[in-house]
């Protein structure tokens, strides 16, 4: 199952990551300037995971996401304007302003929602995979979840059922070493979440989550297995978040050291990948800058769109509760 890494794939991976990074940096600023209410969990630092996985998926493949969900939606094809509008709480947002950051979603893109409940995603992804198998499609569902979420009972039940029914689902663990402010060693006695895979009769694979190509390749294999009817995989991506658990600067807690952060920043998935693209002559520095500029321009438009969009009318409150 060796997908050839064509230039267009590599450029696509790059674009997905840049789109996430730029959107998140901007969202952080918008939050700090008071434009975005509520809680904002930024994906910066983890872009390679969403991008490497999503490059294999079509709109008919589903994903479930987490509280840290913008990156997943962007990588799945989410457009900036309705996303930014949603974060602003505007009527033009993907969820008409009813969901916000923690529930951002788009059913047409197969994005079954960010989720405010840690561990909320796995059972839903398992159910979507069940549906794919039941409806005899070749689609897969990918379930993103954190190291912290791997301690929720919901993950266990979903993984067991996925293994039992050999469902086309990939459990993508974004192990960034922390659940909120609690380091992994204080929330589980294991180092590799992938060690749990054997207990569900599925392969557990560990990959460098800062290396988008590594993620792309490992995800490709797992997804091909799933599409071929061979069942689920637990894919653990070792990664790191560059901003705080919530917001940008967080609560000023000392749960991790500056040194640790700096070490991980040296592995910035975008910097590393851009270095490689240049080295291999796939993109020049100027071309890379052009990508960034184009994305930045898109984001400007999205901000303008969100700013100028109306807030939902109070009459919307009791709408959309029932079909």
């Amino acid at each position, binding site marked *: 199952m060796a997908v050839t890494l064509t230039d267009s794939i590599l450029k696509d991976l790059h674009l997905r990551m840049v789109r996430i990074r730029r959107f998140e940096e901007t969202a952080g600023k918008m939050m700090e300037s008071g434009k975005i209410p509520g809680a904002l969990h930024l994906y910066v630092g983890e872009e390679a995971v969403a991008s490497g996985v999503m490059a294999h998926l079509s709109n008919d493949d589903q994903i479930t996401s987490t509280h840290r969900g913008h990156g997943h939606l962007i990588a799945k094809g989410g457009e900036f304007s309705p996303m930014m509008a949603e974060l602003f709480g505007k009527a033009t947002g993907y969820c*008409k302003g009813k969901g916000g950051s923690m529930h951002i979603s788009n059913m047409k893109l197969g994005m079954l929602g960010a989720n405010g409940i840690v561990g909320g995603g796995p059972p839903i992804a398992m159910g979507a995979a069940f549906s794919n198998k039941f409806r005899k499609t070749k689609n897969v569902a990918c379930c993103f979840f954190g190291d912290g979420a791997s301690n929720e009972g919901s993950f266990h039940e*979903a993984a*067991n059922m996925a293994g039992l029914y050999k469902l086309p689902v990939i459990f993508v663990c974004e192990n960034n070493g922390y659940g909120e402010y609690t380091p992994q060693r204080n929330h589980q006695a294991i180092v590799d979440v992938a060690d749990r895979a054997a207990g569900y009769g599925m392969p557990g694979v560990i990959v460098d989550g800062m290396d988008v190509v590594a993620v792309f390749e490992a995800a490709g294999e797992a997804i091909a297995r799933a599409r071929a009817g061979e069942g689920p995989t637990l894919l653990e991506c070792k990664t790191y978040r560059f901003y705080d658990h919530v917001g940008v600067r967080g609560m000023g807690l000392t749960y991790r050291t500056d040194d640790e952060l700096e070490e991980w920043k040296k592995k910035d998935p975008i910097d590393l990948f851009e270095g490689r693209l240049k080295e291999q002559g796939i993109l020049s520095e100027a071309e890379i800058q052009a990508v960034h500029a184009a994305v930045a321009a898109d984001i400007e438009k999205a901000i303008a769109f969100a700013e100028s969009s109306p807030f939902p009318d109070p009459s919307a409150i009791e*709408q959309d509760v029932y079909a």
Partner: protein
Amino acid sequence: MAEAVATKARTLTYVAAINEAVRTVLKEQPNAFAAGEDIGGAGGVYGYFHGLQAEFGADRVYDTPISEKGIIGLGVGAGATGCRPILDLMFMDFMGECMDEIANQLAKMRYMFGGAANLPVTVLTMAGAGASLAAQHSQSLEAWVCHLPGVKICMPCTPYDAKGLIISAARDDNPVFVVLNKMSLAMKGEVPEETYAIPLSKANIVRPGSNYTIVAWGRMVHEAVAAANKLKDLGVDAEVIDPRTLQPFDTATVVQSVKKTHRAMIVHEAVRFGGFGGEIASQIQELAFDYLDAPIGRVGAPFSPVPFSPALEKHYVPNADAIVAGVKAQLGI
């Protein structure tokens, strides 16, 4: 959605009626499937899935692991992506294991997504005390569900209602809980052979009456009718209303009755304190205040878990006598 005329009625048990309803749904809806613990090979612990896996195949009727979060989650994920899951939660008490999937996912997904998702998910589950199954297998927890925007809930009390309400639930594009009563499984009643649907919005006036209103649901409907028959001698001609569906609740039918009868009693098997009866009593006094000749009474279980011993349980579960006593106390007769 009008109720069918019962041209070809036969006598069926409640279990058989449930079974027929699920069979009907599996036949009419190709994307419907059933999933739950021991419902496939074994046909369910109380047999209401009997024969369905053999008839429709193991890819329509699934045995699941003992994983209630998984079962409801399966329904959410499959329901949002084109299937019409019929989930079995065995005992209503097990909602505790999957309240997140029920309350935070199933009930809210559509709303949180701005209306972009449909969740045509039916959940069958059994409530009720009386079988000496003790504190964790006997509860009536409809109050948890009624308070939850995004789901509907009905509680069929006869074989006829079971078939008609399950079919409606499964055709509805929203999550619907169908709460069955484990003490009614062997109950017999007329059930038309035809497919029919009972609307999830209309109360059923089970027994018309002129000067008293009893609102009761689930198995308590039968106790209420028995109480009404006993009350006749005391000059109380009670109208017994079974709301059938608690959410949406048919307030109009209840209020109209009370405006006629001027006195009312709400009866449920659940713990009285904090039960759904409070909502109904509250609505009635709000909407028919000037018509009331006496405070609205409520009969429900005492404020304790369900005891195991039959010697205790028989005093714990409300029955016709308790209803009669309640009415007498309320009216001072």
